[in-house]
């Protein structure tokens, strides 16, 4: 009963939107008459071009989430170890978090295009003579630009949450570990890091799924062939003719189901790992 206010956004909009997406993918409730079969849209998903998009999306999401979580965890530890005055001044690390995704994508453009700032630096270092010699970071088919943008944007997210956990840990554990002869690396990985495992799992899920499904950054930095799934869907939905709409919806439904399965499997895996650790 007390939960009822959430029914508006959750049931009406979230579940309602999902239902509509599913039914449109099956050919119902479309703005135009549809003459295909019920599962035509889903068979169209096996198109090799789309499958390449799936691969790219998974790869970009995985790499950016992994890098963000590991760099963020180390930085959280570094910020935690800073002396008090610097610790308070270190709020500047939140800047990329406040920037919208499209602005972060813009910053990556400014720095990494062939005529960008890093290219200029390379010129002055004598590494190249014309912009064309600068490596294709942005459109080199490896999604590097998007990975850079996601990482720059999401590292502070991991830092905030990891730091919040460490705030509750007594700094004396580090002193104790050092007195017992542990080195810097060992102290971090065996004494401090375990406190952050849980939040790292959570952050990994969030960042992975966000990068997997988000639109803003690929729209600015994405490569066209293959494109990220979200951009493919956008093109199917808006740019090509309306007959493609069931396919667009089918892709979205599969992305949703994949995300659900990923959350469930990952949390199961993480909790079983945790139990194993506890037994040791």
């Amino acid at each position, binding site marked *: 009963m007390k939960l009822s206010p959430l029914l508006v956004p959750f049931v009406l909009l979230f579940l309602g939107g999902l239902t509509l997406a599913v039914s449109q993918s099956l050919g119902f409730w479309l703005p135009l008459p549809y003459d295909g079969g019920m599962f035509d849209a889903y068979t169209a998903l096996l198109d090799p071009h789309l499958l390449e998009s799936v691969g790219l999306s998974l790869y970009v999401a995985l790499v950016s989430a992994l890098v963000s979580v590991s760099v963020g965890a180390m930085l959280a530890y570094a910020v935690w170890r800073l002396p008090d005055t610097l610790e308070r001044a270190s709020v*500047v690390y939140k800047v990329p978090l406040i920037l919208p995704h499209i602005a972060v994508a813009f910053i990556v453009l400014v*720095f990494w295009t062939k005529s960008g700032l890093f290219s200029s630096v390379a010129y002055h270092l004598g590494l190249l003579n014309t912009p064309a010699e600068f490596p294709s970071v942005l459109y080199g088919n490896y999604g590097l630009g998007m990975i850079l943008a996601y990482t720059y944007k999401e590292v502070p997210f991991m830092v905030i949450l990891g730091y919040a956990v460490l705030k509750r840990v007594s700094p004396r554990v580090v002193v104790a570990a050092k007195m017992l002869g542990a080195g810097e690396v060992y102290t971090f990985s065996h004494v401090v890091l375990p406190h952050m495992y849980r939040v790292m799992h959570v952050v990994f899920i969030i960042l992975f799924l966000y990068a997997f499904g988000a639109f803003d950054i690929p729209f600015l930095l994405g490569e066209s062939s293959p494109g990220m799934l979200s951009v493919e869907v956008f093109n199917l939905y808006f740019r090509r003719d309306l007959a493609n709409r069931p396919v667009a919806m089918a892709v979205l439904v599969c992305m949703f189901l994949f995300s659900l399965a990923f959350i469930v499997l990952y949390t199961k895996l993480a909790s079983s790992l945790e139990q194993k650790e506890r037994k040791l």
Partner: protein
Amino acid sequence: MIPRFIYALIAFVSLFPLLVLAGYSIAPGWTFPDIIPSRFDARAFEYLGSQAPSVLRHMASSVLYSLLTVCLTLMLCLSPAHHFARCDFRGKATLEGLFLAPALVPVMTFSMGVHSLFIRLGLADTFMGVVLVLTTFSYPYMLRALVAGYQAIGPEYEQCARNLGAGFLTRLLRIELPLLVPSIIAGGSVVFLVAFSEYFLVFLIGGGAVDSFTGYLFPFLTSSDRSVGSLLTLLFLAVPVSLFVLVESVVTRVYRNRGIY
């Protein structure tokens, strides 16, 4: 020595891009291979000055729908958060996880469906429609913050107020909400940021009819002249930062003696 170096590194990585954007906004002609811009002019400022009413309109609209989203999520989440924090029931963890799902799963899936739904309901291309769709995927942050807030406060204050004879409304307004202020600020900041910086959802549901700062900014970011995009990005940053500074200073002034913030 090492701490200072680490701090300098963090500050540099965070702030240097802003410095570069500032450089572009005062030197529109900055190109390869200059590391430091060679010619300065105020073209970007002049352009934006001439567009001031339009910039302000888009910014005001963004601030307004973001603030409305914060209010709406707060109203929707208060009672459920109280329930999750105070009561134990079967399937609680599952239900809580389910309610947090809209922030995790790809936004596009439900929002494309909602788009079709809103077209039928006449909510597409409306301000209210934008607020509703932003609420749907940002309320989990508010819910999480409020549940944690209620758990941190504990049930004693409510019991005590009830024992002293306070009714529901008095308890909510005089006791619970003031004690929840830190959590509301934490959750509200995230919701505001998420709503304020969202490009795709506003573009999809607002369809150009609802002004938004991100929508205004976007074409400048893809343009080959980077000066206006840079200046607008810096301007964009100023809104949430000044809002947070304002909230922070008001709240610390009011709550300094109370020891709860």
